[in-house]
């Protein structure tokens, strides 16, 4: 073979290659990314408790701005003080404060797939459900907290279970956890 043939061969290959490279390159220009609107994020869990027979309201709040990020969550109050012998009506609110959204509505719309579980530890608080979904199973957005004898500080763990298609009303039941926060509580006289 002669020199010219080699040159033609090399030239035609380079031409084809660069045409193809250009086509692909063209469709893949590296534009700046858009910021993400974190829709799934829950930043805040609030439980508002109102005593049925008068007295001070209690608000339990867990706030974590950055999801799985390193920021430390803020839990208030340091220890919530429940008064012995009282019954509190409780209402759960979930917020995505980053996007300014009320997640409680999402849970309410999908109440047949969601269940709040309440686990008191070392404290005389009993929690009962006062709402139910379309299948007659508890949801836990509305509850009543019955307070017994005074004692040392304990805690109440609140879990939101996501159970699409498998909810049977038992705790913790199936599915996976969307929220798990623990509030320090104490029953006082």
């Amino acid at each position: 073979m002669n020199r010219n043939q080699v040159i033609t061969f090399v030239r035609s290959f380079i031409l084809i290659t660069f045409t193809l490279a250009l086509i692909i390159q063209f469709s893949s220009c590296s534009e700046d990314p858009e910021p993400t609107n974190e829709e799934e994020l829950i930043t805040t869990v609030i439980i508002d408790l109102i005593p049925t027979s008068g007295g001070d309201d209690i608000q339990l709040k867990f706030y974590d701005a950055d999801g799985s990020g390193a920021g430390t969550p803020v839990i208030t109050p340091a220890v919530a003080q429940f008064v012995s012998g009282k019954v509190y009506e409780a209402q759960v609110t979930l917020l995505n404060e980053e996007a300014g959204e009320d997640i409680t509505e999402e849970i309410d719309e999908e109440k047949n797939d969601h269940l709040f579980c309440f686990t008191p530890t070392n404290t005389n608080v009993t929690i009962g459900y006062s709402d139910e979904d379309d299948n007659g199973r508890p949801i836990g957005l509305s509850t009543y907290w019955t307070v017994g004898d005074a004692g040392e500080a304990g805690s109440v763990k609140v879990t939101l279970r996501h159970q699409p298609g498998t909810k049977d009303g038992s705790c913790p039941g199936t599915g996976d956890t969307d929220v798990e926060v623990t509030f320090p509580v104490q029953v006082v006289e």
Partner: protein
Amino acid sequence: MLLTLFSNPLMAQRLVCNHQVSGSVVDLDGQPLPGATVWVEALKQGAVSEIDGSFLLKALCLEKYVLHVKFVGYDDEVITLDVASQKNLVIKLTPNVNVLHDVVIEGDHAQQHNLSQSVSVLSSETINANRGKSLGEMVAQLPGVRVLMTGPAIFKPVIHGLHSQRILVLNNGIRQDGQQWGIEHAPEIDPFVASEIEVVKGAETVRYGADAMGGVVIINAPPLTETGSIGGELNLGLMSNGRMGVFSGMLEGGFNKSQRWSWRLQSSVKKGGDFHARDYNLSNTGVEELNFSGAIGYKKDDTKAEIYMSSFNTELGILRSAHTGNLDDLQNSIEQGEPWYVADFTYAIDNPRQKINHHLLKVSASKKIASWGKLDFLYGGQINRRKEYDIRRAGRNDKPALSMELFSNVVDIALEHGNGKLTGNTGINGTFKNNNNVPGTGIDPLIPNYNQYTGGIFWMEKLRLRHWLIEAGVRFDYQYLQVLMYVDNTNLIKPEFNFKYASGTLGAAYYFNDRLRLSSNLGLATRPPHVSELYSNGLHHGTASIEEGLMYRDGNLITDQTAIKTEFSKKWITTLQWAKQNVSMEVTAYTNWIDNFVYLRPYTTRLTIRGYFPVFQYQQTNAWLAGSDFSLNWQVTEKISYKAKVSYLYARDVSNRDVLPFMPPAQVENRLSYTWPTVGKLQNVYVGISIPVVLRQYHAPVTVYPKDVPEYDGNKVFDFMPPPDGYVLVNIEAGTNVPVGKRQLTIGFSADNLGNVSYRNYMNRLRYYADDVGRNFSLRLKYDLHAH
């Protein structure tokens, strides 16, 4: 025009089929080789060379023939004979060291890797006997090769303990550029395109760059047809576990009987539902696949060109129960010992699931240039789309939680030069990759957008002496990486990285005689950290863990790049191969020191609104991996054959005096088979049994159950549950070839895990949630459309 092409001249020539061609078969030194077969495929006739190496082919027509020249101890040679122009043909054969033929690879693919490397080959027979399995599952049958699994459908090859971005998959000569950084991201390749799969178990970074640090999986498609006649094959596979069906078809031929142009079209489709373990369905583990590929080739004298395109499309379910919200969920799964979600069998694939498309375009050309050598050009363009769907609230299930598009371009120019004793390969290559997160997921991306440019230059030489083969090579690379990401969702930052790095290889093989060969290779490989290792950030639902990259400190982004080092591996691998007529044996030993080895290590526990999570961070350490593989092939009698293989690996984090996670435990496998050459009309009837024994991983990380994670203050790498016990499986198989007219039907039957044993595999990431798959019966049919 058509008339001239088809009728008169050709027919006239064909009528005169009394031409003769004489020739001789010699070795590389010109010494005659008596007893070599020279076969004319088209005429089903041939000749055997005489004592002086000479042969005579008779009754030839005045046209071109493809000759197959075979001689024991030498590489098969395929050459084209043009009867009109050829009178005395001298055929040179390259020795492959006699009976080592089956274990030593020095033929066509020699330019794809160093000859002093440890290489294992999955032959077309083995591939055929495993049709329907995924690529990773297939290569795991080779000694030293294992697989990292995420459930029954996602398999990642692990070579001597290394995987993901340390293993290069070479698909038809093109480096596979997918999302290989994720442990639950399997290679996006249809194994039906492969006629042979080679696995190189040492560093091949000199030829292929940083990704080949841990080895290369080379997928070879069969060469395009040279005869111009239409042929093809059909494959059907049916599996009981998962009620899976696989079908593939391939058609190939030439244009107008032209010997210059040829083509191939291929497609495969797969559909399977939920797999099942012994005691329960593995709900939501269905899989769907639809793949195409096509090639057009041109060949004239010393010029070859090919365009190859392929499209791989899959959707697969991830075990429903493996989606955990937090550590409590994981603890419950481990305590229960079985998946919490078990439903009736279904083909439906629900969330969590993955949807992957991978498209490839390859253009290659090569030309032999007289005084230079062989010049190879290669361009590859790839588009990889990966979508992962999670279980989400408020109708967001149809929105991918992760959606990425990777565009990649590769240009590779190489010159194979020299001949006789000294040959070499030198070249340059460049890659450009662009990875974008497709907006609209509503979730912060796991890895950021990036642009990556790499340029490399390499030089390799091989010296062949009477008993020795010596090879050496060196490579320099430069990589520019630009990352585009948001900090706190408001500030766009574009950190840039410049990596300059080198690789080297030095190897030798010594042929004691035609039965014994010792080879040894030292590979020095450098790899800059991948974007995922630098900037990963997010929650992993499969393991209830937060993962953070090297560019994070205590959860916050850093800008200081001085702490980032390139990984540097020094692997020394030695293989002794011994063979005689009915026995062949191979022992490989290796030791691999890796400086700045990047891996995930737990460093803290973090409280979030979902509870506590362990935080794993990519860190760099000095690691040491050493091990040995052994394999034996023994043709006990004409009918009975026995195979054995053993793999052992020991891996250690030297700096932290700790073990390394996810290293495969020791494995032993025995296989016995009995073959009848013919039974009536049936050919090659066989039955076989194989018994893989997988040991417990005795060097597993310390166990810290999820419930204990918040209190764990040790600094060791931990695992959420103890490594599972070892297990023994029994697999049986049988098969035969049935002649159907001039064509052939191959029937294969197998039963894997015949005893329906319930077991868990340490290398399966879903072992916290469910058992591995139970018994599986398979039926495989292959119909060869080529007339024999």
